[in-house]
């Protein structure tokens, strides 16, 4: 296992969500690099750029808001999960409603997990902690 800090991508068009999620991750562990993307296109451009420069895995975990404008979240899931170089990135979709009809489609398209965003910050921190332990393993020295 590499000692370089795990890279977590947050894809969300709402600046408030950036702040809350970034704070939740930072509260859970300090060995992460958080990268914020404001749209699906923003993330894809970044991944394309990195792909040209390096062969190493570029992102260790991606969190995508289900509510990106124009249903682009579903298109992003489809694109990432059908790209042989990108499909192994653990891809988590954040929903606001556990009964959202698009959740089924997210799983159909190959997302690793859908998570309903907890309302309370403390619950969000609990969820992010479990999420990090599950996908990123122990804190890297």
């Amino acid at each position, binding site marked *: 296992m590499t000692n370089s800090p795990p890279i977590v991508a947050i894809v969300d068009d709402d600046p408030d969500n950036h702040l809350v999620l970034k704070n939740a991750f930072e509260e859970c562990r300090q060995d992460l690099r958080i990268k914020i993307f404001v749209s699906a296109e923003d993330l894809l451009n970044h991944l394309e750029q990195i792909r040209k420069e390096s062969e190493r895995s570029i992102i260790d975990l991606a969190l995508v808001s289900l509510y990106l404008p124009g249903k682009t979240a579903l298109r992003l899931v489809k694109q990432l999960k059908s790209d042989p170089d990108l499909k192994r990135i653990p891809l988590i979709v954040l929903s606001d409603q*556990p009964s959202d009809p698009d*959740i*089924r489609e*997210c799983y159909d398209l190959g997302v690793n*997990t859908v*998570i309903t965003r907890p309302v309370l910050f*403390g619950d969000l921190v609990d969820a992010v902690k479990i999420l990090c332990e*599950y996908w990123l393993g122990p804190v890297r020295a």
Partner: protein
Amino acid sequence: MSGTIQCSPGSSGDRKTSHLRPSGQEKVYKQAHKVVLVMVDDDEDDCILVEAALKDACFNCTFRCVQDGLQIMEYLKRSGQYRDAKSAPYPDLILLDLNLPRMNGREVLAHLKTNPHYRSIPVIVLTTSASIEDVKICYDLGANSYIIKEAHFDGLVTSIKTLKDYWLDVATLPPKNQT
């Protein structure tokens, strides 16, 4: 192999795995209905061990174990010995071993993840194989997660507890397309 895993409050597994909220109340896992967990493993001893680990980790669920890829297909289609909906409830999660007779785990995974009726069911590969190739192939085939099965029971309980925290408390599972 079938059973219902139900922890009573204050059982040893519950004390070990739950944590207290600021209010002092026990944490309540959020899945609204009792999750149905179906394991695909030809080794009956492994099914017994996982069932015991589920109890120790307080993973409340309805647990079923089928022996190979053809049986899980029959189970999902409710054919053969799995016609009864009550004894063969539709899975919320599938735990899949890789070394299976007749149709190996990779073939089962490929079959599940290319079938529009089944592909939304989260599949967690649970195997003793730590081969990077197996990990890559399984994720390429659409596995939702890949967990290395611990050789010792305590390690298995820890893995199952991690699964419980993640899939019962944090994840939102897809709606079932069949009841």
